[in-house]
């Protein structure tokens, strides 16, 4: 990845709504080359999606999120790939990571309430043949996600005019 593309990603990561024209100005580049680089990165799935980071705790329709440690037996020839796939295809599953250490997969599950998540774990996740054990941890509060602090306490305290 070249530096130009990295600079574009750095800006988009903070504000996905920046236009190619603004990015071009900020980087001192041509708008056409910014647009081309973005298109290329979209095509290559470097840029996967322009999503919004939402603090769901401020939304009435609150969600419950749990992290599930999954121990499983890898398959000959395919390792953890097909188990991971069987898990991540469920819409309830928000993320799946292959981990080093005491367990194999870390699965993030989102549901309307505790019961819904628990039922997904016991009915869908634990019943997958190669899954040996699961441990569920419910998230009580999100402080920071993807580099973004949820409770913004560092307001602008500057004087309106200073020398």
């Amino acid at each position: 990845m070249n530096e130009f593309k990295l600079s574009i990603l750095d800006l988009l990561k903070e504000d996905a709504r920046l236009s190619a024209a603004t990015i071009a100005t900020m980087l001192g580049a041509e708008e056409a080359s910014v647009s081309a680089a973005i298109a290329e990165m979209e095509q290559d799935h470097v840029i996967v999606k322009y999503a919004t980071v939402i603090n769901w705790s401020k939304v009435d329709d609150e969600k419950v999120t749990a992290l599930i440690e999954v121990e499983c037996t890898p398959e000959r020839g395919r390792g953890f790939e097909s188990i991971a796939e069987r898990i991540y295809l469920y819409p309830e599953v928000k993320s799946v990571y292959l981990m080093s250490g005491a367990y194999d997969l870390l699965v993030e599950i989102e549901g309307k309430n505790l019961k819904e998540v628990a039922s997904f774990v016991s009915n869908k996740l634990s019943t997958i043949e190669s899954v040996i054990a699961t441990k569920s941890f419910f998230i009580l509060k999100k402080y920071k996600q993807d580099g973004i602090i949820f409770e913004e306490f560092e307001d602008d305290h500057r004087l309106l005019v200073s020398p």
Partner: protein
Amino acid sequence: MIKDEEKPQTEQIERQRSGMQHHLAAHARAIPPSGIRRFFDLVSASKDKDIITLGVGEPDFVTPWRVRDAAVYSLEKGKTQYSPNAGMLELREAIGQYLYNQFQLTYDPAKEMIVTVGGSEGIDLALRALIEPGDEILVPEPCYISYSPITSLSGGVAVGIETFADDQFKLTAESLQAAITPKSKILVLCYPSNPTGAIMTYEEMLPIAKIVEENDLIVISDEIYAELTFNGKHSSFASLPGMKDRTILVSGFSKAFAMTGWRMGYACGHPDLISAMLKIHQYTIMCAPTMGQVAALEALTKGGLEEKDRMMESYNQRRRLVVQGFREMGLECHEPQGAFYAFPSVRSTGLTSEQFAERLLLEAKVAAVPGHVFGKGGEGFLRCCYATSVSQLTEALERINTFLRSME
């Protein structure tokens, strides 16, 4: 001497009415009220939450957490005592190393350096250590607002040298030469410049250095914005041939490390000059705050320097955005190569910079500082600090544009 109670009652009443002004020293009374203060009062009085301010003179970043954490930790450990007058040796050594790495300057931390309460104190110490009544201090303007008042406190005379947008607000050898008289003693340089964002390259400073040498001047080089130099690296005036001994370098942590409130600065120069400044410092200040020094030390670690670089890149992006924005709306704006200010001309509107700034505040809810407060050559310009979020900047530019169109 007649005691107060023996004086006629009317005279006593008269004195009470006139307040305490008559107690003030003439030099304190003579300091003109700051133009920036007047504008601050105007902005503050409006109490409008919707105002976007481009009027600040400091970063929009909060001091990096690692720096704050280091200071908090030092407080928890009870590091609340005085430091040596010149500052913690460890910090001076780190500053020495930093100046060498960044600007190829070599200063002896033991004899040629003093940690001050902000760059401001460094400027004050330098001027006070050097000025004798009647000395003329040459100051390229528009410039930071403190040099002239501090000069007059010591009985010196500040001589403004006007710089022009056509020269990108750089000091030219001709205008410096023209300002020199037998009384000239000090040249104050502030590049990168607050308020213009101008810089001076090594080559551009060479003829200035020649004049400094020929006229036996001392240079106080306020390089507080040195790290905020875009399109190339900053050259310190002290790095010019023969200039190290003639230069008092003043800098600090406020701008580059987003540490304005900590008031951490430093001054470097010839041991004779620094030791005189140290005498004044030890009697007036004792030492810079210890927790601030611990914080500054952390700022100079690898992690702190990386945070600084990240912030610098972000200013550069916003600089391009704001300059382009002004040009697109038809305001002339020379390209600021340093600091975090754009200095567009508002002359095309037919308004003075003060009228423009006031109307911009009241009608468009954007605060920016009228250029005339920064001295000669500032009239007709507006200082706009772009150290604010991209969304705020974009909104401010839109409002200024709408305001300009409403005047057509």
